[in-house]
């Protein structure tokens, strides 16, 4: 039998407060043939990471593998003693964690950490280990493979660190590698490079792997088999094609339908063309400002946007593009260095102190992480009651009645009012977070990555709620997200931010097919599709040769360094013009509309001219 890994009857328990135990993984069984990849998929709390870690005989924070059998090759992992486990970990089974930034020791060099397992297990000499490491760096397409090892973790980017961690896991040539959400923390454009590198290494070396993820589209690219988990129990186990195409279990079907892009009907075509919020030539950033009023670290550079009354503007960009800074400026948390923010045609004061109570009321913000945005020891009634009293002077029965109405709006039962925020689930907290903003009776709600911390199914329900609220209350949203599919499904208008500049703006229809700005194109092409083989087929423009570093004019195209179709002599010399395309969208690019419609290879030819 070619089963390499065989798990049966696995049960993991966690301690509860009162000397009792609760089962978090129950009766899980699966087998993986040698050289194949099994994906463990499920939402948070499904036990997928717990199962993956138990393959190394490891359980986190007080949890206990209470029964079952885990065989790696001929070894029964659960019967190993402490030194037996040490010999297994890092040598025969290795681990790639979710957050590379936290999983690298900040005070040791990368090379010391990558080669550590080799030295611990005495697999090879230090010199031999370093040669192997450089080979792996090269195989994982890391830049400067010879010298990257001498750097410290904070000196390389997140995507590189994630690949370095894979090198760390592969260096002892283990027979089983566990990938635990290895790309979840990455930007979508970086994720695809990392996935390609992982996939190639897995195939070339014939590694048996367990790939933990919540993202079915990613799993479709990586896995041969999929194990669907829900609350610690197996829901479905099968070949990738079968699970994706003919899911047998109802829970799997829910998961798949939650990520299938749907165009949410925004339902208010008859809105006035009256601008609610206008931003003109906004410059904002952090740090001390110089004598021209420019901040030391400018984040937003010359941003323009308009949100019409009753419409939704999606702001999309990768981490560090200035999305949240934009929300902070509109909310009055960060004064603009230059430019204006107009609400209903009236300029908004830059600081909180300068704004009136009514201006506060009209713009509300909903933060990404409801866990930290709500005081866990306040009751829901307190959280919702405060804006009602502050903005509308409601007290007593009147206030109670409004709190009930607010809960009804976000589809929570009225009994929730008496509970503490800390006792609620993630999705419930995000609803309370939204209800708190609605309690002020705002005209504009700034939604900063409101579904990013939620599971797919829960997040989709929140998006539906947003659409419904807009239909009922006529509020406008600025919907900030890193996920283009979410933005396309929800928003009327879209603004693409790159390095603090708006590179493309248009209605959502213009984001359905080309022409796009080259960055938008990269962004759209990088979103994995729920289809096997997409990763190999995805047309990846050749990564451009990096430009020679030097002082660069801020006026130049911000995407210059990564642009696959940049025109030598033009893009690195002249500021890009703002061009209005025939479909009505506006882009910041030197290319003509006709050139942007060409497939990437022909681009390069066009660029040569």
């Amino acid at each position, binding site marked *: 039998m070619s089963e390499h890994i065989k798990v049966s009857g696995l049960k993991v328990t966690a301690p509860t407060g009162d000397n009792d135990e609760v089962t978090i993984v129950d009766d899980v069984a699966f087998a993986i043939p040698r050289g194949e990849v099994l994906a463990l998929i499920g939402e948070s709390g499904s036990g997928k990471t717990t199962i993956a870690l138990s393959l190394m005989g490891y359980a986190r924070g007080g949890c206990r593998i209470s029964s079952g059998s885990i065989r790696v090759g001929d070894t029964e992992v659960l019967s190993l003693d402490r030194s037996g486990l040490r010999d297994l970990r890092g040598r025969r089974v290795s681990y790639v*964690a979710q957050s590379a930034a*936290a999983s690298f*020791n900040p005070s040791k060099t990368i090379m010391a950490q990558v080669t550590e397992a080799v030295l611990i297990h005495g697999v090879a000499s230090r010199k031999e280990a370093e040669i192997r490491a450089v080979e792996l760096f090269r195989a994982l397409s890391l830049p400067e493979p010879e010298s990257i090892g001498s750097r410290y973790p*904070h*000196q390389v980017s997140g995507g590189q660190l994630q690949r370095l961690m894979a090198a760390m896991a592969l260096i002892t040539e283990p027979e089983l590698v566990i990938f635990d959400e290895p790309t979840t923390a990455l930007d979508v454009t970086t994720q695809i490079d990392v996935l390609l590198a992982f996939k190639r290494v897995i195939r070339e070396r014939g590694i048996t792997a367990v790939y933990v993820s919540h993202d079915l589209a990613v799993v479709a690219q990586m896995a041969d088999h999929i194990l669907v988990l829900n609350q610690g129990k197996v829901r479905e186990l099968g070949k990738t094609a079968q699970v994706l195409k003919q899911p047998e279990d109802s829970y799997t079907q829910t998961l798949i339908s939650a990520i299938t892009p749907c165009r949410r009907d925004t339902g208010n075509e008859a809105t006035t063309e009256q601008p609610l919020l206008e931003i003109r030539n906004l410059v904002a950033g952090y740090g001390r400002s110089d004598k021209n009023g420019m901040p030391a670290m400018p984040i937003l550079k010359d941003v323009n946007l308009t949100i019409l009354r009753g419409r939704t503007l999606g702001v999309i960009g990768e981490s560090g593009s200035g999305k949240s800074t934009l929300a902070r400026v509109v909310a009055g948390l960060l004064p603009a260095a230059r430019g204006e923010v107009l609400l209903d045609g009236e300029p908004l004061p830059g600081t909180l102190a300068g704004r009136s109570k009514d201006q506060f009321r009209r713009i509300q913000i909903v933060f990404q992480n409801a866990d930290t945005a709500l005081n866990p020891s306040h009751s829901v009634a307190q959280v919702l009651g405060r804006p009602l009293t502050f903005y509308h002077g409601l007290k007593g029965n009147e206030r109670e009645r409004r709190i009930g109405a607010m809960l009804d709006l976000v589809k929570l039962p009225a009994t929730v009012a008496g509970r503490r925020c800390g006792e609620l689930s993630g999705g419930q907290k995000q609803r309370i977070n939204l209800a708190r903003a609605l309690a002020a009776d705002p005209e504009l709600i700034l939604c900063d990555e409101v579904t990013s911390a939620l599971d797919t199914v829960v997040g989709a329900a929140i998006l539906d709620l947003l659409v419904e609220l807009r239909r009922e209350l006529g509020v406008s949203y600025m919907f900030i997200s890193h996920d283009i599919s979410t933005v396309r499904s929800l928003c009327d208008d879209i603004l693409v931010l790159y390095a603090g500049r708006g590179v493309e703006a248009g209605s959502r229809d213009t984001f359905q097919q080309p022409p796009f700005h080259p960055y938008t194109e990269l962004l759209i092409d990088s979103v994995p599709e729920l289809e096997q083989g997409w990763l190999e087929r995805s047309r990846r423009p050749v990564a451009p040769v990096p430009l020679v570093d030097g002082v660069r004019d801020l006026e130049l195209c911000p995407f210059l360094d990564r642009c696959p179709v940049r025109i030598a002599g033009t893009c690195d010399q002249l500021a890009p013009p703002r061009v209005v395309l025939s479909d009505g969208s506006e882009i910041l690019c030197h290319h003509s509309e006709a050139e942007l419609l060409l497939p990437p290879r022909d681009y390069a030819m066009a660029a040569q001219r």
Partner: protein
Amino acid sequence: MKSVLFLILRRIGTVLLTLFLVSMVVFSLSSLLPGDAAQQLLGQSATPEAVAALREVLGLDKPGHLRYLDWLRGLIVGDPGISLANDLPVAQLVAERLPRSLLLAGIAALVSVPLALTLGIASAMYGGTRVDRFLNTLTLTMVAIPEFLVATTLVLVFAVKLNWVSALSYAPPGASFGQFIAAYALPVLTLFFVLVAQMARMSRAAVLDQLSQPYVEMAVLKGASLPRVVLRHALPNAIGPIANAVALSLSYLLGGVIIVEVIFNYPGIASLMVDSVANRDMPLLQTCAMIFCAAYLLLVLIADICAIVSNPKLRT
């Protein structure tokens, strides 16, 4: 590398500025003490004329800010004035006493720091086990007992009842090693009691904090042994907080030294300061206060530099 130098220079600048501010506070506070040296020297029965004449001689009649500037200048060039009580230069008095205090503090630190760190790290390494609980109880008990009680108990047991060592601790120049140990055993043991507990607890907390980081789990999953995980992975990242804990504890040593020197009648700088308060000997008092403050700031500075140098984000 350049930025590290800049960071360190900036810390040194802060230390100098703090010292300057402290000098103002010390000077104005000490002039608030009731009575003055002229009154103290001449006694209760002196005539007002005699007191006034002596004040003029001692320069006590000049306005406060002029006396401050004079004193500050003297402090900078290393001549902090003449002791009012016994007519000797303050510099000479301090030069005689300071090395002895430093010797006592040095021995106490030398004994306590390595032991405290070992206890703290061991306790973190075996967090939650019986070893940890035992060490916790021990250090907590030690922290709870005030040093004067420890000192008097030690004197009562070892000097008075058992008669092993002298209750007064002073090793004359040229004392043998045995005499030296006998003289320093009790005061060092007293200081050790207070110091060890604090440092051990704080280094335990610093290491435990690092042990909960994901990179430690990663090291465990690479198959690293417990000592390797703690010593090679967690400890280098805990150096900053540990250095700060050690600096704070050692600065506590200065306060501890006052009580210990008085109880064991040890001729150090702290007992000199206590005498100067009793005699209203302002120049001496002010100088001692400045020395204590400077020593404190120096310790904190060293801790800061340790933290900067041990952190690659700041170093590179």
